């Protein structure tokens, strides 16, 4: 039972999580009228996807996840008090992703390292210091607290802030195929990202 749950989570982490940038791009198409936050749609999609007990039978995780997202968007539309004509019309026009995104989007390792280092560099000074000592030098939160003269809970707060920043950076990374809003200048990277 516990093993099964672990397998299910590992599947989610391996197959579904890496789709986040694609799902976000897909979700934006449902949110053009400004009534729904695309990130909320993705968040809800993740919650529904990880709940899937029959995950072993899913052959195409990308198609699976986009179908859930579409349902989430439909539910959000139904919950609305006022349906604007444009919202409905726009909605009908959105095709399911023809070529479902796949999990082949692990960034080239040097590129990812640079992305993460840049993300840390953008943090506020104290937060960056705490994060650097924890993740680069592997000091424990207690050691960091002593070294910087902070309380352990402050150290934790900085770590949470840094982690949240990085996980969003990773989730919003511009994807391989992303013709929605901001894809144009990225077409040259397709070959890069298509590598498994």
């Amino acid at each position, binding site marked *: 039972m516990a093993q099964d749950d672990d397998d299910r*989570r590992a599947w989610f982490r391996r197959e579904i999580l890496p789709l986040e940038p694609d799902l976000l791009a897909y979700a934006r198409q449902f*949110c053009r009228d400004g009534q729904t936050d695309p990130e*909320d749609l993705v968040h809800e999609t993740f*919650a529904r996807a990880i709940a899937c007990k029959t995950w072993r039978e899913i052959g195409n995780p990308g198609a699976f996840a986009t179908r859930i997202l579409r349902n989430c968007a439909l539910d959000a539309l139904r919950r609305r008090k006022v349906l604007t004509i444009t919202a409905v019309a726009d909605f009908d026009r959105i095709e399911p992703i023809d070529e479902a995104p796949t999990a082949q989007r692990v960034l080239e390792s040097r590129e990812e390292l640079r992305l993460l280092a840049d993300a840390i560099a953008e943090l*506020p000074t104290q937060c960056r210091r705490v994060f650097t000592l924890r993740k*680069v030098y592997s000091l424990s939160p207690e050691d960091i607290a002593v070294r910087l003269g902070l309380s352990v809970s402050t150290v934790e707060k900085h770590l949470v802030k840094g982690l*949240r*920043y990085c*996980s969003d950076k990773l989730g919003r990374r511009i994807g391989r195929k992303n013709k929605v809003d901001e894809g144009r*200048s990225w077409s040259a990277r397709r070959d890069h990202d298509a590598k498994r």
Partner: protein
Amino acid sequence: MERETGSRREAVRQAAALWVVRLDDPSCSAADRAAFEAWRDDSHEHEAAYEREAAAWARLERLRALRPGVERPDRDLLAERRPSVARAPWARGMAAAAAIALVVAGTMTFDGGTAYATAIGERRVVVLSDNSRIELNTDSKVVVRYRKGVREVKLIKGEAVFEAAKDVRPFVIKAADAVMQADSSTEMAVRLRSDGAAVTVKRGAVDLDATPGEHKGERKDERKDDLRLTAGVTAIYSSAGSRSRAVSDSEIDRALAWRQGAIALNGQSLEQAVAEFNRYNRQQIRIADPSISGLRLAGYFQTTEPNSFVSAVTSAFPVRAAAGSDGAIRLSRRAVPEKIG
């Protein structure tokens, strides 16, 4: 509305991130682990959020590769260098592609405050230390100054949406001649225009011209009632005075369609629409023939796609597009027998 679900999402992710940090702490106790299991069993939302943060945390292990072979840890190892590593190609691409960057602003306030700005075509979300949010539209700039007792934000250029988080300190927004004090949980947009500051309140309420602690007693109350804008009201404020009117939710959403990277037109003139597109793009559009500037348009367009807007216009109206000598797209009347209304 959705902002509430957004902050709920953030709250869940924060909680998940804290568990990730705690569980990875060597001093994490069995009781902590049990509490975590209980939290995770609460909902699949928690479970998925934990996986998301844990996966990012695991990927951050790679940062160890940057550790130089010296004994003493350098806590500023990853501080931005000059020339900076942050100007990696992907960073430039992000800006160029108008991607939304989430900036976690700390207490890095130096004297004049902290400035945040966007380039043409860019959008940016800034989360301040108290969790107030500023969403910057194209070509905009704000300066944030959190001093003792007051949270002050000044819109220098362009347009922004402000969401004031709950806090004992007043949240004051300055734009052109307007000074506003937002109630907590207020969501409002401010745009600097040639005729003054346009303020639209989406949620909550805001006092115009409120100068904290200056007007006492009755007079202050009078002023407050006079110049209090509530949700669903838009006002233009200039040195000459202010005028306000009620706006519908859908009108507000259309005005704020840029947050989704869109321009929503609902009967605006071609002239207004073109001015709107020109805010977001270096590729400018010009109306060469004044007789077409009054054409009325409706529809949703991507802010960064002036060409698809132009082709929609030229296929719906007797309008012709040509490249001007200055690189701009020139719109003129196409010769047709009928008269345009």
